């Protein structure tokens, strides 16, 4: 059900788009109103999520250090895996975002009869990278629909993407890449027992949805040709706020309806990793907390056992040992030894701060 459910759901979504634009011809609804709403929902949702994370404090400087830290001048620091400066952090983050550096470390652990074996495992990294890069380039290529005249960089990108000149229309590498990537990631979830065990419905759903989008796009481009001038009229119209839905092919509306679903779903799902990674405290902080003080905005006073109390409790012993003493000895009986008695009664002050209820 965790696997079949999302497939049914995505088929149903495609069905809705087909129904709405085939038999019902609700072109303006599916071509204009829903896309505007979805885009707005995406932007607002994305911002809310980022602000929401941003609202939480970063009390401590906790980078996960993955290389030699800055130390003595003659010891070579690993500036990217253990950055001590802003530049280093930017470099580390760029490597994470562009090349999935941490995922590249991946290894696989197998249990043998009398031990364990750690082996190389770069497949996830490779296909994750193919999938994401393909997606990014595809998204960038789509800008041709929203810009007029078409900027040179898009044409160049298209040229690069269609470099091998296979087929007519030219097959884009990224189209192959995204299908291969999603297929790998999906199959991996289904067949690798460990991954299948941790996977939930919400892990299959985005993959199926993205696959649906890619499939509809590929069908449009390579099989049932759509009227591209009508499409461009609509997309440019959307950008210029003069939209006119003259496209009539349901496959096109299936494609953009699924994209709208993705846009709406995106901010409230795990897909927000795209924004979250930039805020991750173990990756976006410099490891310099011994050189530069980090301030915790909610740091508060706590109950301590002071040296004075300590000395008093150990006074006789310390005197006998000839250890230097700071204070006059206060005998237990005189004032009701406050620290201990207070604590035994539940030390209201400390208890309160510990207990978040208080």
């Amino acid at each position, binding site marked *: 059900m965790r696997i079949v459910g999302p497939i049914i759901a995505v088929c149903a979504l495609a069905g809705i788009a087909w129904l709405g634009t085939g038999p019902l011809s609700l072109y303006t609804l599916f071509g204009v109103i829903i896309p505007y709403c979805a885009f707005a929902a995406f932007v607002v949702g994305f911002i809310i999520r980022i602000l929401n*994370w941003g609202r*939480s*404090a*970063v009390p*401590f400087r*906790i980078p*996960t*250090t*993955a290389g030699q*830290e800055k130390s*003595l001048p003659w010891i070579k620091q690993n500036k990217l895996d253990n950055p001590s400066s802003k530049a280093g952090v930017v470099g580390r983050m760029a490597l*994470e975002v562009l090349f*999935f550096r*941490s*995922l590249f*470390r991946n*290894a696989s652990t197998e*249990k043998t009869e009398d*031990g*364990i074996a750690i082996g190389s495992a770069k497949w996830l990294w490779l296909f994750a990278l193919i999938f994401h890069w393909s997606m990014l380039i595809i998204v960038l290529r789509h800008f041709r629909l929203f810009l007029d005249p078409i900027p040179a960089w898009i044409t160049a990108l298209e040229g690069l993407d269609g470099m091998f000149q296979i087929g007519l229309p030219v097959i884009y590498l990224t189209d192959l890449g995204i299908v291969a990537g999603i297929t790998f990631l999906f199959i991996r979830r289904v067949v690798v*027992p*460990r*991954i299948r065990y*941790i996977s939930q*419905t*919400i892990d299959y759903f985005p993959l199926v949805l993205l696959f649906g989008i890619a499939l509809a796009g590929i069908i449009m481009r390579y099989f049932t040709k759509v009227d591209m001038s009508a499409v461009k009229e609509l997309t440019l119209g959307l950008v210029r706020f003069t939209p006119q839905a003259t496209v009539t092919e349901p496959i096109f509306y299936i494609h953009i309806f699924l994209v709208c679903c993705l846009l709406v779903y995106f901010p*409230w*799902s*795990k897909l927000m*990793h795209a924004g*979250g*990674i930039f805020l991750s*405290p*173990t*990756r976006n902080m410099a*490891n310099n*907390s*011994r*050189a*530069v*003080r980090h301030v915790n905005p909610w740091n508060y006073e*706590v109950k*301590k*056992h*002071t*040296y004075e109390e300590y000395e008093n409790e*150990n006074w006789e*012993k*310390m005197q*006998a*040992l000839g250890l*230097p003493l700071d204070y006059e000895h206060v005998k237990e009986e005189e004032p009701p030894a406050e620290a201990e008695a*207070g*604590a035994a009664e*539940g030390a209201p002050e400390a*208890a309160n701060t*510990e*207990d*978040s*209820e208080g």
Partner: protein
Amino acid sequence: MAKLPNRTEMLDFDFSLPPEGWMDTKTEFKDGMFCHAVKPEKLETVGMPNAHKWSASDEDWGLPENWKEIILQGMADRLEKYRSFKLFMDVCVRCGACADKCHFYMGTGDPKNMPVLRAELLRSVYKRYFTRAGRMFGSLVGARDLTEDVIKEWWYYFYQCTECRRCSAFCPYGIDQAEITIMGRELLNLLGLNTDWIAGPVENCYMRGNHVGLTPPAILDNVEFMMDDLETVTGHHFEPSFNRKGAEILLVCPSGDLFAEPGTFTFMGYIMLLEHLGLDYTLSTYASEGGNFGFFTSNEMAKRLNSKIYAEAERLGVKWILGGECGHMWRLMQQYMDTWNGPADFLEQPVSPITGTVFENAASTKMVHMVEFTADLIYNKKIKLDPSRNDDWVVTFHDSCNTARGMGILEEPRYIIKNVCNHFYEMPDETIREKTLCCGSGSGLNAGENMELRMRGGFPRAEAVRSVVDRFGVNMVANICAIDRAAMPALMDYWNPGVGIVGTHELVGNALVLDENDHRTMNLRQEELPSARKEKEIADAVAAVNGPENGEGGAA
């Protein structure tokens, strides 16, 4: 106590998975895999909430009536206080890259020991009560209700995580299960659900200044004893001072080094070195613990225990602080202390009085790691070393999790070891430095009653050691961590008998040449040195050749 399974029994598991999903498997409390429940007195002394008598094997854990409210409110607070917590609850894609990186998973095959599932134990509750999707769609989006069984599951599995951060190194978003475990344990502590093994040292450390609860006379006695041993070995008598005002440097060590072998040998190494250099330093009986089991309890408790270090440095009027070899102690000194209890503006930027090196990396905390200090000495050729004194040992180095993934002290100890030992070999790349495997006993799990857990958790590390034992004849594992020194001897005895554990400064102490007359015959453990043995062999051989002719000693 549960009987420890033998090697074959221990390894009789695989990574196969149960047919039913993880949410539907009830936690089974296996003897040997968890610590005793905390005794209420210990919590009361330090003022932790909801102290009560309970036991993990009980059906009823005696939770306070409003336990659910406490947990949910506790979560709400922490989601605001820690961006890490909130973000890590939200962004996991369950790619599974972390799944097989945890030593507890590798050693138990229990799927809930995969970091991603350990996180889901808490994430599922987060989703149910703090996200709209979870409230609306429940288990469809991986959400579940908070029940007493969930609390028990948390307790079992958050005390099967050593907060080692290995998973975090592999996660594409840096999701750090250690951070989530820390939150989980804080929440459990709101209900009085600590372990006794953690709460005991916390109480000791709060009241007496150190985890083992050593009083001033006990500390001085132990140190005197060690100094007598040092005199036996080196012929020199050293008298470190305590609580001395006006010293230049305050030396803070993990109390394990004052307490038991082989930590005591490491301590002897520090003292020999500092005395040999004629440094103006002192120790404190009040700040007699660098380690901090409070960190395994709650942020607040950790801060409370840590406060004495700066307080004592200020009271004694020292210029800077030198810290001994300890893993979690150092993660806190680096990533937390200044934030908690700083700024230490009453101290000065540390400068080595011997080499003049300014420790720029410690400009704010004013605290220097002993291996940084010593590496600097060696680099500047300020001490004379005779590595052959460690020739009986074929050494490898185990990076402790905290210094590796919470600091990045990787080269300093290696540099030292290569200068004080002639035989050093690295374990496989996948198991050292930032990928180091945990000893299996960190974060307060080094108790006796959970020995099976410790042996299982330490198994991947032991395997890596075994590989260098087989290839290079390694017989000694060096480290810079007091927990390693306390916990790894048992691990080695179990998996790799005959392999010993040694603190890096014990190796330094052995190799350190105090003066021209420093002709030692034994190491700090009072075992015969290879040179002495050779001399004896030669003498014996000479005696054997000469013996009969001289007519003395016969055939002896």
